[in-house]
């Protein structure tokens, strides 16, 4: 079963690498934000899989924290939607 968890971790790592490639290539800023959002989700998945791989399931608290940080990022994105910029001086 450990081999299977390792395969899953490698697949998640490959996906994270592909998201990073899109974040580097992305022609618009929205592509980069999309890739960054996907990277955060994959980080949560990777922490969960690695915690089961090592047999230390208390790492799951860190994954919970990371998903909450994704929520904070979503709130920042909503601000980006309403004002069009992250800074207060733009408007």
């Amino acid at each position, binding site marked *: 079963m450990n081999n299977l968890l390792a*395969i899953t971790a490698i697949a998640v790592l490959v996906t994270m690498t592909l998201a990073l490639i899109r974040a580097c290539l992305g022609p618009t800023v*929205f592509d980069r934000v*999309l890739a960054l959002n*996907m990277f955060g989700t994959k980080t949560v998945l990777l922490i969960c899989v690695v915690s089961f791989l090592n047999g230390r399931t208390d790492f799951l608290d860190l994954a919970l924290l990371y*998903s909450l940080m*994704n929520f904070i990022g979503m709130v920042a994105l909503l601000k*980006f939607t309403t004002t069009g910029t992250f800074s207060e001086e733009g408007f």
Partner: protein
Amino acid sequence: MAELFPLALDALSCFFLIAGSVFAVIGGIGIVRLPEFYSRMHGSGITDTLGAGLIFAGLVCQSDSVLVAFKLIVTLFFLIVTSPSSCHALAHSALAHGLKPELDVMPRESGDAIRVEEQQRPL
């Protein structure tokens, strides 16, 4: 029967983990290969829903205590709540900034539109 049940649970977990890995890699290939922003959101959505959901289901099948399974389910719940919301906010923001979908296949000229209507009328 008592020793058959963990075997079935392992097989179920194996299936979920492999399917989740496959969907995650497919979404990763999609976000690199698809031609424009709005279609790349589709690749990101695959990994956020099917990939994460299946991998978490496989991990829940392997968890040895109720607390671990509960933590996994709570994490999955937060992912399910936040990921579509941020995707929606991002698409809304991109549209508000004038990023047009390039793969818009609806006919733009009036002649084409009439022809499409004539084709659709018998249906």
